[in-house]
């Protein structure tokens, strides 16, 4: 039988991998994929725990997770597309119009 901690470990691995993707990749779509991976890590945790506690709440949690992810992803993807349309880039490095003006201000 699978100990709970093993499932949780795999979930944690997925979570951190997703996080690593977000931190390391420069392409917006990759970042979105990283998000998906992270969410899936969470889902695995919930389902494993649901199995452990033997109640459906874990699965319910995962369902809502999917719904929310879908909603969020939809809007996010459109924003990425808008970035491609208007800013002609989907690279994170290029999205630096909004930042602190480090020239320094008043004395």
């Amino acid at each position, binding site marked *: 039988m699978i100990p709970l901690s093993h499932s949780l470990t795999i979930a944690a691995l997925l979570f951190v991998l997703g*996080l690593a993707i*977000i*931190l*390391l*990749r*420069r392409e917006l779509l990759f*970042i979105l994929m990283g998000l998906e991976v992270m969410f899936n890590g969470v889902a695995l945790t919930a389902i494993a725990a649901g199995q452990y506690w033997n109640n459906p709440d874990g699965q319910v949690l995962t369902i809502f997770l999917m719904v929310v992810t879908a909603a969020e992803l939809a809007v996010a993807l459109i924003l990425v597309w808008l970035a491609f349309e208007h800013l002609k880039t989907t690279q*994170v*490095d290029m*999205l*630096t*119009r*909004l*930042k*602190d003006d*480090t020239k*320094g201000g008043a*004395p």
Partner: protein
Amino acid sequence: MSQFLWLIPGSPMLGALIIALLGGYLKQRHFSILASCAAAVAFLTVLLAWLMGAATSQPLQQTLYTWIGVGNWMPTIGFTLDRLALVMVSVVSSIGLLIHIYSITFMAGDSDQRRYYFFLNLFLAGMLLLILADNLLLLYLGWELVGLCSFALIGFWYRDPLRASAGRKAFITTRIGDLSLALGIFLLFNEFNELSVSVLLANATVQWETGSQMPILAALLILGGAIGKSAQLPLQIWLPDAMAGPSPVSALIHAATMVTAGVYLIARTYPLFELAPQVQWSVAAIGTLTIIYGASAALAQNDIKRVLAYSTISQVGYMFLALGCGANALALLHLTTHAFFKALLFLTAGTMIRTNDNEHNIHNLGKRGNHSSLIRWCFLIGAASLAGFPIITAGFYSKEAILTATWSAPTGPLLWAFAAFGSLLTAVYIFRVYFFVFQGSRSGSPMPPIPAPMTWSLSILALASLVVGFVEFPEGWPGLHLWSDWLRDELGSASHPTLATAYSLQFIACVLPLIGIGVALVLVRREKLGFELPLAAFLRTGWNFDALYQIILIRPYFTLARFFKNVEALLIEGTLQKMTRSGMTVATACRDGLEYGVLNKSITGLLAGLRLGHMRLSATQNGLLSRYALMISAGAVFLLGYWLW
């Protein structure tokens, strides 16, 4: 009578007030009349006091109101007129009145008489207040007030920066003495919880033992105040410079009245000095040294007013000597005679200077030589009185008495020898001036007539310089001994030498001025031939005291002040700019901040540090999405790390 006491200082005060407030509505010449009237009222009140028998009765008292009532600190605005004060107010008010009258014509041409008479009246008020004050704080008020007026009048012609500086010098030097007096007041108050002079002295004689620490300290502090005001060694430096003021001012303030305030103060508090014999002796010693100092310095001066200034220093030295020997009454006598003859000398000198286009140099004055006979006679009388020309001058009586009294004091013969030598020098220097000025070629154009007010005041002073001495004939002589008898109750009396000794001392005192005049004749002849006195330059600068003070006190003080200023400027301005420009690191700020001025440097350092922090943090806001996510993860790592730790 006592309810009119306030009029004595009050009327000149009112005069000053009227001049200050309503001056805009008056013409120049009205000021002099107004001021003279105010002085006259004061004088008349004093006269009235004599007539009403103040001389014989108990001290008169008047208290107006409590000035500052805090606990035991209850100085009143109140006056006491005892015999000591009576003598002083008589001298001050009479000479004050005469000089006011003299000034009417002397200052007639000046365009700023309002200020002149304001301060002259204010001075008179302050001086009378000082004398009449029944408590130390009120005395201090008068004390400072006369100092202020002295400052303002020395620098009366303030457009000349030298004159203005002379005023400031006088004020600050005397203020150092005042500080000492103030501390003395604190000490006395702290000991007795009382400010009234009479009560204080009574308490002191009861509670303190002779020669114990407290009275010594108190007497020393008061002596400090007296030295400053009376221009005794080592605080004498301001007086010669004070001659920058108009001559009547020199006569009134820097010869007759204010400089003798120190004498008055010591006489007033003499019981304290009796409790502290060491201090009393040092009073005498300071007096003696000052006599020699002043006389020798006067010997080499070429400016007529400076001669008189050093002479004043020297003569006040006699008074101190007398005080130091316990002959308070005699000190007072010399104060009185000195007031008259020195005022006379100053006023004649002033007239001469006036009529000779502001010429101060005795050589040049002699060369011009067109002096009216009134002036000549007046100066001669004054000079003789100053030199102590035997029998006929007032100065002889007062000075001789002091010399005699000195003999029997502790280390008396030594003091006497110095004082006698000083007496010789006095005759030499004053007749040197006389011979220079009045034995010159009479080549000048005829004199303009001297106006009546001047003539009158000069004549009265001249008369007084001759006759005032007759109130006190020398010990063992037939004649009056009014003065010392009358004052004995209040001021005590000094011990006298045996009659035989006294006679020989008196003989010497008679002879010395004559010898001095002879020496002066020789000296003048030789000087006219180009001969210089030994050490003349040294003496002329007043023994180089100014330079000495410049080196040991003033320069270091300013240097220190500048140093602090530079430090501040460096710390605030310099670093701020530097730091804002290059964004210096906090470390540098801390290191430099450890230097002297932690204050501003640490502030600017803090600012720079904050700024640096801002810059560093702001640099992280670089718009990079991954960086933002990284920070969030770092936060998560940190928070989770807390649980593992």
